[in-house]
């Protein structure tokens, strides 16, 4: 408990000024975290998923289990500058699969559903049946639609170079983008409030920890 208190104070001291205690706390923290993660990796990945399968089960499973083992070893080569090149195949494999999963996730997971939701959420029947007065719902749906489209337009990159002027997009695109920017600002503002709330919770929790410790000292 006392250690937690000291570390908390060390980190808080950074708020006043960057100092040695803060750096010490940070380094201990990084080391401890890395060690804990290593242990987790051993118990949850390296032993059960890479090593153990080798001598369990039939030949087919063993052969299949050899592949991740070999790839893992190749990956570890990356740590040593001289052997680094040997690790590249494993890395290339990870990049390939990673890119594919990213594309799949982005299209199946984000682009298509968000597009369909944008269309389906504009639903007059639902507006009529909904409890609140239908025109408010319809207006809100309209705002959401406009916001989605305009904030999409905001990202448009291509621009035309006018004679000795900075490149600019066509006027009408600029106008739409300006509307989109309002929605983006509101969204990011809402998120900023969220982040601040999360951080404030941490601040309150830490200070509560401190004050309770002090109180326990006073009460003995």
């Amino acid at each position, binding site marked *: 408990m006392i250690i937690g208190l000291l570390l908390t104070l060390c980190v808080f001291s950074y*708020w*006043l*000024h960057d100092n040695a205690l803060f750096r010490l706390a940070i380094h201990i923290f990084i080391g401890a*975290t890395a060690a*804990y*993660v290593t242990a*987790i*990796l051993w*118990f*949850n*990945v390296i*032993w*059960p*998923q890479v090593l153990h399968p080798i001598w369990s089960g039939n030949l087919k499973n063993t052969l299949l289990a050899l592949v991740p083992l070999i790839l893992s070893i190749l990956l570890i080569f990356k740590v040593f500058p001289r052997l680094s090149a040997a690790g590249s195949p494993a890395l290339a494999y990870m990049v390939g*699969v990673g890119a594919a*999963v990213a594309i799949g*996730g982005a299209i*199946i*997971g*984000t682009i298509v*559903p968000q597009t369909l*939701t944008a269309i*389906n*959420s504009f*639903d007059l029947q*639902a507006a009529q049946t909904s409890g609140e007065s239908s025109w408010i719902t319809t207006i809100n749906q309209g705002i959401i639609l406009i916001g989605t489209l305009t904030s999409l337009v*905001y990202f448009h990159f291509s621009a035309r170079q006018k004679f000795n002027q900075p490149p600019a*997009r066509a006027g009408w695109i*600029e106008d739409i*983008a*300006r509307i*989109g*920017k309002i929605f983006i600002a509101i*969204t990011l503002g*809402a*998120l900023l*409030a*969220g*982040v*601040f*709330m*999360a951080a*404030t*919770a*941490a*601040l*309150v*929790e*830490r*200070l*509560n920890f401190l*004050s309770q410790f002090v109180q326990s000292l006073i009460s003995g």
Partner: protein
Amino acid sequence: MDSITCLTCGHLNPPDNHKCEICGSPIETQDSPIDATKSGSQSPNPPEDLSSPHIPGEIHGVGGLLGKASLTPAQQAHTRLLKELIAGEGTTPTPPGQPKMRANNLLRIGVGSVIILLILISLLVELPFFSPPELSSETLAARQLIYSLPPGAPVLVAFDYQPAYIGEMSRASQGILAHLMAQQAYLTLISTQPTGPALAELLIAEIGRYTGSVYQAPEQYQNLGYLPGGASGLLIFSEKPHQMTPVTADGEPAWENSEVNQINHISDFSLVLVITDDPETGRTWIEQIGPKLGDKPLVFVSSAQAAPILQPYYASQPQQLQGLISGVAGGMAYQESALFFLNNNQAGVPWSTYSLALWAGAAIMILGVIVAFICRMNEEDSEPRSGGMKP
């Protein structure tokens, strides 16, 4: 030489400056490297002009706002200190070598001391000033789902948040987890972050302290530990849970208990509860797991910073999220509404102090707007700037 106008705040800087004295943003002259250590001379128009006029404005602003948050004299003293410090941003004589660093440090220390003292005082006084939050529809939906669980129902609980958020997330999730335990659900804990397993164990133990009955592994729950590979890992886990997580966090064989040994697909769980601080993680779960759950509900406990992104999934047609508890407020509302009592009101994040801190934060932000506005008024003569990220 002419003085250079800062494109960002419009402040007139001496020609040898490379970072603006007022806003600190680099002055974009083609040949001038951005090197704050070079800029240090006084601004052409005396900084007092920047600071003095806005004191009344602030008294109005702060009095009006912090007033709502019931200022003690001590706190008022500190807001006054804060005002002086912000005034200081313009007025502090800046020795060459560190132009506005000192002003920034003072501002940081001022703001920090105000909010920290405010929190400490309200922690010591413990005045129940703010009434508990109301139960939102998505939180209510989550509660109904938990009530409908039969005893021994297998429930998957994902602890996917950074340890830093423990204050908020434990306050947000204690209610629903205690409720799950009261319903005697069999919990299967998992995390796609390596620090998750420890968080899970800590929270289970903590709830045990509050309710008086500690859940036991492996009779009442199993901790599958860390699931590597993010989206890829989840994809495989949802179809072959045994293959992806054969052992528990401490290396013991998993899936042995009768409640879970029949589970061969994610949809065999009665309910999936995801506790996360990050909208990306949340979306990964919704996108990878959601479609595979069939008619089984997916419930989220989310940090306040993820809620704005996750809320639409609850509102969407068809519903991709069947329940959502967001932030300290959601957790409080859940606890208040549930039929059992957790003796943790002063532990972790007390609601009243938290609300007060939020008010203080909002007040300080408003103060920032007022100060910036007044500075802007004083900069009227210099060229107006459309600012920030141009569309």
